[in-house]
């Protein structure tokens, strides 16, 4: 399929261009291998060998990634880690990648679960240290198509341990939305049908969702990658989102707020994560989620270690623990994503889980548009125009919300 190969190609080009963008040279050629040249992250040494644990570790995680039983007593993989390693874990969750980047700058955290729109910013900013994968025994079982990717490595040096990946879904109230949606059009062009009841993710990166929809429905705009928008394409996405805003009840970045507003019926349709669906269903809200026909944006997350980590040994033990088959299976099932460790597929309670989430399917994984940071050098390989960077997206997002 044409689009599929294009998508795969893009990852390579994206890495090369990103490298060019961050490097000191002014070269914009896109011929280098992923992360191979130009990009010079600050020199930070990786850990040579594991010592004894420091007795504590500070974890910064997406909601649902580091559960210690406080949300649901049955969902707990932090306590076993603490028992096994003697590292007392404190967990802080964040709602957007931007928040994660900001929080990592405080230096208070040892490890972070970073998505593709945060990881390279952390590396370039000198906030994340390279990872010595030899010290992480379970790294050997991580799916090969997740290793040495543009969003988790630089010049063949891994900067983290792949954790899991998945797609942003479209959630709806089964009792209020009829017929069941099949396309993102339900929240964009047909949103007025649910005026005042639509919800959307409160982050500039959500612009990519609109761009993806335009890519599939308005070919004349020439969008090839939702993270590579020239100013005209960005404007089209902004216009679409401004029109959507008239029908939006509220934007969400706090996942519990979304659960609550779907439960009460303030929102009946909108973008979501599988973990939100699971939580809402657990609270008896009549909701369902689908992967719409246009495909979806998504995430591929990496556990990264802070450059100034005060507890590096406990942090390595955490990274090893969280991608161990058992823990990785628990997280994947709870959060609703494909686990990175292929052996985790034997540990899931639902034996068909990995098939449902296409965990071993490299082709499917390549079809999701993983969150990445937009930069001036177009990620889709165009050299005749300047693309809009993340600060332009941030300004646009402020403008959309008005």
């Amino acid at each position, binding site marked *: 399929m044409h689009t599929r190969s294009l998508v795969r190609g893009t990852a390579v080009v994206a890495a090369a261009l990103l490298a060019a*963008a*961050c490097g000191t040279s002014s070269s914009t050629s896109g011929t280098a291998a992923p992360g191979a040249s130009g990009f010079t992250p600050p020199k930070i040494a990786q850990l040579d060998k594991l010592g004894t644990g420091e007795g504590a570790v500070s974890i910064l995680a997406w909601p649902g990634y580091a559960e210690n039983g406080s949300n649901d007593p049955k969902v707990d993989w932090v306590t076993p880690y603490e028992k096994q390693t003697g590292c007392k874990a404190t967990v802080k969750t964040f709602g*957007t990648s*931007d*928040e994660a*980047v*900001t929080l990592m*700058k405080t230096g208070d955290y040892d490890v972070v679960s970073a998505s593709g729109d945060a990881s*390279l*910013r952390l590396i*370039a*900013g*000198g906030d994340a240290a390279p990872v010595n994968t030899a010290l992480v025994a379970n790294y050997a079982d991580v799916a090969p198509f997740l290793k040495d990717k543009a969003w988790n490595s630089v010049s063949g040096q891994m900067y983290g341990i792949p954790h899991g990946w998945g797609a942003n879904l479209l959630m709806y109230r089964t009792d209020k939305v009829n017929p069941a949606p099949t396309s993102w059009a339900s929240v964009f062009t047909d949103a007025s049908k649910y005026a*005042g009841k639509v919800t959307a993710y*409160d*982050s*500039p990166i959500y612009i990519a969702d609109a761009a993806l929809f335009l890519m599939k429905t308005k070919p004349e705009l020439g969008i090839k990658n939702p993270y590579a928008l020239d100013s005209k394409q960005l404007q089209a996405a902004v216009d679409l989102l401004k029109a959507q*805003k008239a029908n*939006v*009840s*509220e*934007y969400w*970045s706090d996942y519990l707020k979304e659960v609550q*507003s779907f439960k*009460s*019926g*303030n929102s009946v349709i909108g973008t979501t994560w599988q973990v939100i669906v699971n939580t809402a269903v657990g609270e008896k809200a009549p909701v369902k989620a689908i992967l719409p026909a246009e495909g979806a944006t998504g995430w591929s997350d990496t556990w990264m270690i802070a450059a100034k980590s005060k507890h590096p040994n406990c942090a390595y033990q955490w990274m090893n623990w969280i991608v161990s088959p058992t823990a990785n299976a628990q997280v994947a099932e709870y959060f609703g994503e494909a686990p990175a460790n292929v052996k985790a597929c034997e540990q899931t309670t639902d034996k068909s889980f990995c098939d449902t989430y296409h965990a071993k399917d490299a082709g499917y994984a390549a079809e999701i548009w993983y969150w990445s*940071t937009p*930069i001036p050098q177009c990620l889709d390989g165009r050299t005749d125009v300047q693309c809009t*960077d*993340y*600060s332009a997206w*941030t*300004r646009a997002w*402020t*403008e959309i*919300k*008005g």
Partner: protein
Amino acid sequence: MATLPADSPRRRLSARLTRSPRSRLALLLTAPLLWLGLAYLGALAALLVTALWTTNTFTGAIERTWTFDNLSTVLTDPVYRAVTLRTIGVAALVTLIDAVLALPVAFFLAKVASRRWQPLLVAAILLPLWASYLVKAYAWRSIFGGGGLLDWVATSPGYGLPATVCTLAYLWFPYMVLPIFAGLERLPDSLLEASGDLGARPWRTLRTVVFPLAFPAVVAGSIFTFSLSLGDYVAVEIVGGTKQFLGNLVYDNIGAANNQPLAAAVGLVPVVVMVVYLFLARRAGALDNL
């Protein structure tokens, strides 16, 4: 009796302090002035300076190069103008609602209620301040939410500006009642009686005697309700729907967008608005009423 020996250090210190009023003043004011100067004015100065820096959009690191870009963005970008006007408008509306509601309540407390009931009623007005701000805001979220109290009575307008105005007016109500109550208490009853004796009907007494004398107190109360509404972002986040206020822009720019300089520039807007407001309030004589 234990008297201090004539040359004890404490005695000498005490004698010295008695002789030198300057040292007394220094002792009294050093700590509060340090607090005011460093923590308070220092923070404001840091805000101003940060607004003149910029951030690297990729790594999010602050770059200390001087630029007026952030300030000019805030001044010229139509989004910031719209948000500023919306915030000021809501703050003004909240103040107006609170003033209209608080005047009769304060008048009743100060002039009608018996001495026995007065403290109890004042305590009742203060009662909501004992509950957490968040609890009250979330209570309003459920009132305006789907299947909430408003939905039982009529159709709830949902989250948005009406919900925000109601919530803020509720939250800051005590701050308006108290200054007006204090102002009306100082109004001698004899003035009201004199007005009546001279043939004025109650409405005329209210209009020509009570209102002019209570006006500075209302302005004093409005300083609280206006400034608190101007800076609020939590209630807006909870019941504001898709609407943004200045506080939300600051919060988003620091938390989400990681652009502290722009946040600082936005943060200067309420500072400027309040300086103008306080200047006008001073001319109305309200500052003597605080």
